[in-house]
């Protein structure tokens, strides 16, 4: 059901853990729904120098957290903000349709951590362009 890439990021998750004294933290999801992601960012000169996560959730949730933290590392905040759930899912070589929300969660976690940083620094919060713009569409490469 999962692509090899998903399984790789599930079995060898990158960036698991917490960052001590993080510059931004975002926690999204809900244990009632079965997934929670907590994203920790280290930010220097507007650049994400480190990203870590802790996740309670299914294989796709863990792999999405792993991939999302990979994707934002080294990016400016503006660039990182543009990392969409679709980009996460594509980098994972697809997610089953019922698991697309995991990539959405990862995008939201990153956004929340960035805004946490901006808030702490008295910067204006960025707003989600369109809360419904996330790509939940079926991924033709997978099935459920």
């Amino acid at each position, binding site marked *: 059901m999962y692509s090899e890439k998903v399984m790789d990021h599930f079995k060898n998750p990158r960036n698991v*853990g917490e960052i001590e004294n993080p510059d931004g933290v975002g*926690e999204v999801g*809900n*244990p009632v729904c*079965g997934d*929670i992601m907590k994203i920790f960012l280290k930010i220097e000169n507007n650049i994400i120098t480190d990203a870590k996560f802790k*996740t*309670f959730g299914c294989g796709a949730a863990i792999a999405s957290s792993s991939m999302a933290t990979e994707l934002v590392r080294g990016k400016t905040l503006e660039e990182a903000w543009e990392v969409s759930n679709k980009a996460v899912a594509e980098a994972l070589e697809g997610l089953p349709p019922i698991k697309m929300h995991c990539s959405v969660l990862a995008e939201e976690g990153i956004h929340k951590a960035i805004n946490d940083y901006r808030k702490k620094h008295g910067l204006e919060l960025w707003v989600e362009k369109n809360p419904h713009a996330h790509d939940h569409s079926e991924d033709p490469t997978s099935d459920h």
Partner: protein
Amino acid sequence: MGEKRTIYMDHSATTYTRKEVLEAMIPYFTEHFGNPSSIYGIARDSKKAIDMARVQTAKALGADPDEIYFTSGGSESDNWAIKGVALANRKRGNHLITTQIEHHAVLHTCQFLEKEGFEVTYLPVDQYGLVDPLVLEKAITEKTILISIMYANNEIGTIEPIVELGAIARKHKVYFHTDAVQVIGCIPIDVKAQNIDLLSLSAHKFYGPKGTGALYVKKGVRIDNLIHGGGQERRRRAGTENIAGIVGLGKAIEMATADIPGHNAKIRSMRDRLIKGMLEKIPNARLNGHPEKRLPGNVNVSFEFIEGESMLLWLDDEGICASTGSACTSGSLEPSHVLLATGLPVEISHGSLRLTLGDANMEGDVDFVLEVLPKVVTKLREMSPLYQKSGKEGGCNVQ
């Protein structure tokens, strides 16, 4: 995942077809393939084979052969029993009673009937998943035409007090159906002594082929057909008979019920060791279902702070086949309706694991699972934001 041994601990999802069963089936594909409704020689062979499977099935249930109808599986049997009785008895009433922990084949059928104007009471269960006979009795009204309660639950393995529940149904002259899909070969059935009017079973749960089941319908029960058409199964279930499948069901039920105590003793001792070991080795774990009134092969444990699917994936990586809720819903995001009905909090029910033992298992399998599982749980807990290393009080840190 290469050459590793596979440890199959998902017997409640499905079983392999036993060698002897497959061997009994083979000739009916190519040689004795005649349509049993025809009158020539090769068709008479098919007919005889079906008659024999009917006798084998009836014997295993304490029924008469002409009370056994073959179907395409447990789901069809459940659908047929419930819709068939509901539609045929509409004039007497429109109320059905079932429980909150039934298989979806029962629950979704009841929901369908609700759309058609029937009323359904879904009985609650206690923390162990048990239905209270007094609660059943209170739920019966003048309009009740059917009570459907599973013999044992597929997720948590709890065995219901069927004899008592059936006696209440009988006392109130209400038809009593039981979904016995999980219990064939584990609990001796005697439909007459156990007050059962209709009983569903499915061959692939007791080492028979998938796609074949049966419905026992006590003589005299008013029931409509579900699948209309030709005159097969004494005009009650249309469709050219799946002869090989039926032969397989007959052989499988005969073998599965030949020595139930012996079979159970072996499976139960593995199960008990597995439960004990899991609870000892893994903190913040709890057993779901009843400690004694449970299927001999069923283990269902919840682990706090982690989610079930990620456990399954790691176990699969070690060659261990397990499941979370019932197999049919393991692709789903919703937590098990059964665990919720026992009062388990949603967040904890997400972290439950079902291991169901059966004939494919040996004692060594238990050791292996007890070696692997604690590591998997630890690994996942370590990456869980809910898990505080300090201990239990981590709890659920809802936003």
